[in-house]
C-alpha cells in the first residue's frame, strides 16, 4: 500500500511537470477552446489606473506607423515609448519619465520620433526611431512655467513637423487663479532638427489662451495655431480663433476671429485646422459643430453646419467638431459624442443627429456623405483612398459591445470596408500608406455598473486588400 501511495506521488509529480511545461509555454491551456483573433495581434502596454467610462478626460495613448521598417512607435500614459515590429514583437522600449505621453510625430525621414508629455516639466523628446536613444529634449516648463503644487503641469499638446524637419510645438498649462477663475499659459515654439530653438511665439510673453493645435505648411510658409479657450474675459490679449505665423521667424502675419454661435462665447478649435498638402487650403471644425474651409490667407471660403447646438427641453446640446483634413477626395470633418453644454457630465434627452460622425464635402462645399459610428471618432488616419477611425466611447448610449473598435471607411463613397472590434474603446490609431497595416490603442474602462471592460493594449490589424 505504501509503495502504491509513493508511486501515486511520483505519477502526480510527472503530470505536474507536464502541466508546468504546458502553461509556461506559448500555447496555454486556456487558449485551446478560444477562437484566436486571426486578424491581428495584441500587446499589453502595462497597468494604468482604470478610468470611469463616462469621464471627460479619458485614458490616451499615441501611435505612429514607421514605413521604412514596418514598425510601430507607441507612447503610453505610463510615460513609456515602445517600438514594435509588424508582428507585435518589441524592438525596443524606453521609459521617458513620470509624465503621460500625449502627442507624437515622426520626422520626414522617420529617423526621429518626437514625443510630447504632460508632466511637472512637460518635456518634448526627440528619440532615435531605430534604437530608442534620446537625441535631445526640451522642457516646456521653460515656455509656460509650472506649478506642480497645484497640479498645474506644462504639457506639449501637439507637434507638427515641416518638410525641412523643423519641429513646431504647442505648449500649454492650465491655471487656477486665486480668485477661482481659470487661466491659461500657452506658447508656440519652433526647433531645428538638432533641438535648437528657432523662435517662440509670443516672443516675450505667454498667450493667455488655451492652445491645443498647430499645423505647418512649407508651401504657404506659415504656421497656423488654433485656440481653445471658451471664455474670453475682458482684457484678454489673445482672444482670436486662429493665429497665422511666419514659418521662418515666428512673427504674426495675421489672425482670425470666426463668428460665434449661441450658446458659446467664443469659437474654438481643439483638433484642427490642418493644411492641404499643397498648403493652399485649411480645413477645421470648431467645438460648436461647424466646419470651415479656408485658404492659406485666412479667408473663409465656406462654412458648413455639422452638428450645430440645439436647445431641447431647455438644455443646449451639441456634438463638438474636432478634425478637419483636406484629402484628394475632398474635405473631411469629424464630430464626437453629444454633450450637455451646461455640464459635460449631465445627461442629454436626445442624441444630436450629427454626433460621432465623419463628413466628406467636395472642395466647393457640396455635401458628399456622412458616416455615423457607434462611438466617438477618437482619431482618424489616412491611407490612399481609405480613412481609419479609432472608435471610442459612447457616453450616452453606453454601447459597449458594438461601438468600440477600429473601422476602415472608403473615402470615395463612405462605405464601411472593415471593422475590427475591441472590448474597450480605441483611443488612438494609425494606418500604413498601403492601407494594409492598422495599429490602434485600446483603453480599459469601468462602466457605471462597475464592470471593467477592455485593457490597455496595442492592436495590430491587417487589411489584406489594402488600398487596392
Amino acid at each position: 500500500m505504501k509503495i502504491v501511495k509513493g508511486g501515486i506521488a511520483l505519477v502526480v509529480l510527472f503530470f505536474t511537470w507536464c502541466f508546468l511545461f504546458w502553461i509556461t509555454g506559448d500555447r496555454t491551456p486556456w487558449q485551446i477552446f478560444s477562437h484566436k483573433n486571426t486578424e491581428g495581434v495584441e500587446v499589453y502596454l502595462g497597468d494604468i489606473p482604470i478610468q470611469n467610462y463616462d469621464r471627460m478626460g479619458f485614458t490616451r495613448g499615441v501611435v505612429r506607423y514607421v514605413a521604412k521598417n514596418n514598425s510601430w512607435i507607441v507612447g503610453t500614459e505610463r510615460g513609456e515609448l515602445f517600438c514594435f515590429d509588424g508582428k507585435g514583437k518589441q524592438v525596443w522600449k524606453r521609459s521617458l519619465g513620470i509624465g503621460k505621453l500625449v502627442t507624437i510625430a515622426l520626422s520626414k525621414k522617420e529617423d526621429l520620433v518626437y514625443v510630447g508629455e504632460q508632466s511637472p516639466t512637460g518635456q518634448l523628446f526627440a528619440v532615435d526611431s531605430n534604437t530608442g536613444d534620446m537625441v535631445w529634449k526640451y522642457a516646456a516648463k521653460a515656455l509656460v512655467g509650472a506649478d506642480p503644487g497645484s497640479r498645474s503641469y506644462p504639457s506639449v499638446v501637439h507637434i507638427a513637423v515641416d518638410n525641412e524637419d523643423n519641429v513646431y510645438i504647442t505648449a500649454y498649462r492650465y491655471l487656477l487663479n486665486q480668485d477661482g477663475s481659470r487661466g491659461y499659459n500657452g506658447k508656440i515654439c519652433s526647433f531645428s532638427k538638432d533641438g535648437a530653438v528657432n523662435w517662440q511665439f509670443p516672443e516675450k510673453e505667454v498667450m493667455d489662451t488655451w492652445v491645443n493645435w498647430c499645423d505647418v505648411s512649407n508651401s504657404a510658409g506659415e504656421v497656423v495655431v488654433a485656440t481653445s479657450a471658451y471664455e474670453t474675459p475682458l482684457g484678454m490679449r489673445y482672444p482670436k480663433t486662429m493665429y497665422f505665423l511666419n514659418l521662418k521667424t515666428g512673427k504674426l502675419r495675421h489672425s482670425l476671429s470666426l463668428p460665434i454661435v449661441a450658446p458659446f462665447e467664443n469659437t474654438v478649435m481643439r483638433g484642427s485646422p490642418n493644411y492641404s498638402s499643397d498648403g493652399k487650403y485649411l480645413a477645421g471644425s470648431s467645438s460648436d459643430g461647424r466646419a470651415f474651409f479656408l485658404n492659406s490667407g485666412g479667408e473663409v471660403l465656406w462654412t458648413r453646419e455639422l452638428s450645430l447646438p440645439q436647445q431641447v427641453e431647455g438644455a443646449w446640446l451639441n456634438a463638438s467638431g474636432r478634425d478637419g483634413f483636406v484629402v484628394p477626395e475632398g474635405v473631411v470633418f469629424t464630430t464626437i459624442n453629444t454633450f450637455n453644454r451646461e455640464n459635460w457630465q449631465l445627461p442629454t434627452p436626445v442624441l444630436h443627429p450629427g454626433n460621432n460622425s465623419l463628413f466628406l464635402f467636395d472642395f466647393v462645399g457640396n455635401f458628399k456623405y456622412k458616416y455615423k459610428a457607434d462611438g466617438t471618432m477618437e482619431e482618424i488616419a489616412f491611407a490612399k483612398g481609405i480613412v481609419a477611425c479609432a472608435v471610442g466611447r459612447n457616453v450616452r448610449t453606453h454601447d459597449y459591445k458594438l461601438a468600440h473598435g477600429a473601422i476602415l471607411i472608403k473615402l470615395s463613397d463612405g462605405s464601411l470596408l472593415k471593422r475590427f472590434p475591441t472590448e474597450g474603446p480605441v483611443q488612438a490609431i494609425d494606418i500604413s500608406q498601403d492601407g494594409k497595416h492598422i495599429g490602434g490603442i485600446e483603453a480599459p474602462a469601468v462602466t457605471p455598473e462597475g464592470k471593467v471592460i477592455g485593457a490597455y493594449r496595442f492592436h495590430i490589424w491587417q487589411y489584406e486588400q489594402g488600398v487596392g
Partner: protein
Amino acid sequence: MSVRQLWEGAEGDNVIMHLDGRSKLFVLFSIAILAITIDNPRTLFLLFSGTLLLHFAARTSIYKWQVMAVLLLLGLWGSMVSQALFFAQTPRTPIFMLISPDFPILGPLTNGLFIYQEGILYGAIQGLRSSIMLSMGLLICWNSDPRQLLKALMAWHLSPQVAFMLVTALRFLPVLAAEASEVITALRLRSNSKVGRQSICRHLPYVVNPLLARCLRRAQTLALSVVSRGFFLAENRKKVVWPMKEFSSCLVLALVVMVTVGSKLAYLASEQGFYVGFLRYLYDWTKLYL
C-alpha cells in the same frame, strides 16, 4: 529507511557526492540567485527540470524521490491554486466561476469566486522558485557529508564558530526528526496504542517536553565535546585544493549568473529611464528569456 537516514547525507558513490563541498555550495547559491532573478516562466521551468535531472545524476533513491515529490507537489499546487483564486493584480481573466456573485449569501460575501488565468501562471512562477530551491537543497543535503560542507565554509575563511553553527543547524534537523520519532514510539509503547496516524496525532501534544529535554542534553554534550577537542583553537588547518575542473566550472557558472543579473539590472534601469540604445538586444533578450 529510518527518519534520520531520510534527511541525512548518505554514503554513496555518485558524481554529486564526489564533488568538493565548495562546488556544491557555490552551485546552490548560484541557482538560488538565478531562481530569484529570473521571471520568465519557461526559463524557470527549465531550471527546475535541470535540478530534477541532477537528482537522476545523483541516483536519488525511490523513497527519497517519493518524499521530494510530496513536498514539491504541496509547494507547487498550493501556490498555483491560491494565486489562481486570489490573484489581485490586473489584468486578470476569469476562466472558471466557482461561486457566482449572485449566489445566495456566499456570492455577496465574496463578490464571486473565480479562477484567474494570470493567477495560475503567477502561482506557477512562485511555486517553481520555491521548488527549485527545495530540489537543490535536498540534492545537496542528500549527497553531502556535513564535514564536507564545514570544510568548504572554513576554506572560504568563514569564522569557525559561524561555520560550525551552520553545519550543526543542518545536521540538527535530521537529528530532531529522529528524536521526535523515538519519543513518539516511546509514548505509543507506554500507552499500548496501535501504530498509525491517529496515534501520532494523539501523542503530538505530549512530544514537546521530552523532545526539548533531549535536545538540551544533546546540545550540552556537543558543547563539551567542542570545547574539549579545542575545535575553535585550530589555526593551521590543512588547506584542501579546489579541483581545477570544478573550479573552472564554477567560474563559468559565476559568469552566467553575473550576465543574468547584469542584464536584468540593465533592463530594470532602462525602465527607469537609464536607456542605452546599443543595449537594446540585451533588453530584448532579457524580456524574452529572463
